[in-house]
């Protein structure tokens, strides 16, 4: 293997290029359509590329007409952001997203278990109840939630966001986890029970290995939605508990428009989700379609 790779770097390079293509199977695109596909891809990616590029420029080079993509590169904007205290906002975002994701998993995994491996009666009804809550627009709940939170003295508190994000993501997580747990082979479960394995042993030895990738995918989706949430964050927090999206909006209002710094902030707050999403692209599909499409 190593020998072949050393002997034929060309072959290795070709292999690298072809990575992500399935072996054989799908027919090839003609050169013309390949060009179209890449043109469309670059058109969609251009705003992201522009955001990242501008974030490494000075303000004077960012706000020019025509644009100057090849201006000198520096990390100044990022340094400025951290000296302007973006850190507490990122911490609030991280806290709200991570804790709510953990809570969602803690609630969703047993639920999904009760809906797939040892299904309760009318389990599909329960599934659709969860899903229907996702279809109710959050804006219609904002007023009572605001009033309740205000009365409870919980405005501007990260835990308020954590509770809301948990409720927001729970239906998605239940659906996803159910579809993953449904893949645990029934025969093995029964065989394990016949052999006298206890519940914990079955969970750990049979269910967990199959469900782990699903658990990871579910956490990813919940994390993305919580990290990006804006409406509750902007209306229910003020100074203590504001999250990254609120920082972004507030920072334009307070400091006026600094294009390069805005791009740096936008890049920075999008980075965790971009990295996570790129790393788990194939899992995204199933998560986004609530596990209904594989």
């Amino acid at each position: 293997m190593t020998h072949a790779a050393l002997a034929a770097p060309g072959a290795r390079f070709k292999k690298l290029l072809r990575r992500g293509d399935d072996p054989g199977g799908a027919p090839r695109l003609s050169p013309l359509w390949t060009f179209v596909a890449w043109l469309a891809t670059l058109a969609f990616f251009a705003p992201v590329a522009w955001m990242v590029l501008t974030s490494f420029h000075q303000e004077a080079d960012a706000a020019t007409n025509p644009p100057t993509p090849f201006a000198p590169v520096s990390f100044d904007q990022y340094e400025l952001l951290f000296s302007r205290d973006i850190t507490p906002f990122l911490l609030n975002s991280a806290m709200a997203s991570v804790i709510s994701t953990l809570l969602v998993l803690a609630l969703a995994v047993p639920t999904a278990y009760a809906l797939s491996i040892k299904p309760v009666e009318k389990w599909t009804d329960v599934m659709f109840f969860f899903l229907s809550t996702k279809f109710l627009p959050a804006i219609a709940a904002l007023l009572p939630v605001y009033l309740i939170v205000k009365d409870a003295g919980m405005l501007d508190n990260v835990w308020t966001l954590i509770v809301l994000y948990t409720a927001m993501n729970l239906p998605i997580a239940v659906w996803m986890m159910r579809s993953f747990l449904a893949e645990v082979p029934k025969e093995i479960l029964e065989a394990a029970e016949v052999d006298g394995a206890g519940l914990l042993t079955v969970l750990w030895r049979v269910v967990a290995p199959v469900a782990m990738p699903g658990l990871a995918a579910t956490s990813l989706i919940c994390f993305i939605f919580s990290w990006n949430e804006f409406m509750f964050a902007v209306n229910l927090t003020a100074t203590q508990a504001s999250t990254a999206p609120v920082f972004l909006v507030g920072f334009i209002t307070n400091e006026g428009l600094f294009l390069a710094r805005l791009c740096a902030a936008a890049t920075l707050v999008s980075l965790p989700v971009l990295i996570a999403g790129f790393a788990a692209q194939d899992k995204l599909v199933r998560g986004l379609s609530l596990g209904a499409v594989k």
Partner: protein
Amino acid sequence: MTALTERPKKGAPPSVRPQPPTGVSKWRRRVPLLPALIFTIIVTQLPFVATLVISTFQWNILKPGERHFVGLSNFSFVFTDERLRTAVLNTIVLTASVVLISVVLGLGLAMLLDRRFVGRGLARTLLIAPFLVMPVAAALLWKHAIYNPDYGLLNGTLNAVYRFFGADNGPTVDWISSYPMSAVVLSLVWQWTPFMMLILLAGLQAQPGDVLEAARMDGASALATFRFITLPHLRQYLELGILLGTIYVVQTFDAVYTITQGGPGKQTTNLPYEIYLTMFRKYEYGEAAAAGVVVVLGSIVIATFALRTIASLFREEVSR
């Protein structure tokens, strides 16, 4: 609701339940379900009940002494108020155009990415980036770095092209004030096309290869294959994409709040933003709640279709 949630009859394989569960084991099965169920009911259902109650009150927090029960008059206000009617119309225009355009673009991209080509994996990775950028960041990026009349990327590129061809300066178009709705739609299409592409690509790749092979052997044209084999196969995926997209895009708040603030005038005010204004600018809680109830009713109509589509996909999976 009941019609939608009936249990798939042929669904559950017999091995799932070897013997009819007895009373105790029934409850043992239900216990793991209860925390999530109770939590969801408290956090999502109670607020809606509260919204219903508030919607029957005349309640402006600037006039604290005047809170009283007014029955359904907030609803008659909701249905006759011109601002709200505009908001309903804007919501429909915004949602329909974003969802339809991104489905068509997503389908095109999915068809391309279903074939092999140089760097397909990289192209797919770059393509999903717009969906992963934080929505508020994306909205600010479009507003300031792309649409800005003086040094936005759009006018800047136009200017560069004009200069390249020897003209003095390109036109200075204020995109957001001149084409506010299109500006919001474009930025949302950019965000949602990757979503549609991912779902449709999953659909395409689930297509049985032998049927396509057979069609090719029988000499079917590419167009005929697409029209009679691929499209019917994709139908459920298209429905799923459209309905999930609709559910999310109807609720659009970030983009409107950030890019146009509903303006100029009320040209881009959609329902969520209008309700937000009623609540936090006019402080008319009763009206805001009534508008919220109307939005919920509208969503139930869409959700009914969505649930039916998902139920059919789901039934297939269960019976497999």
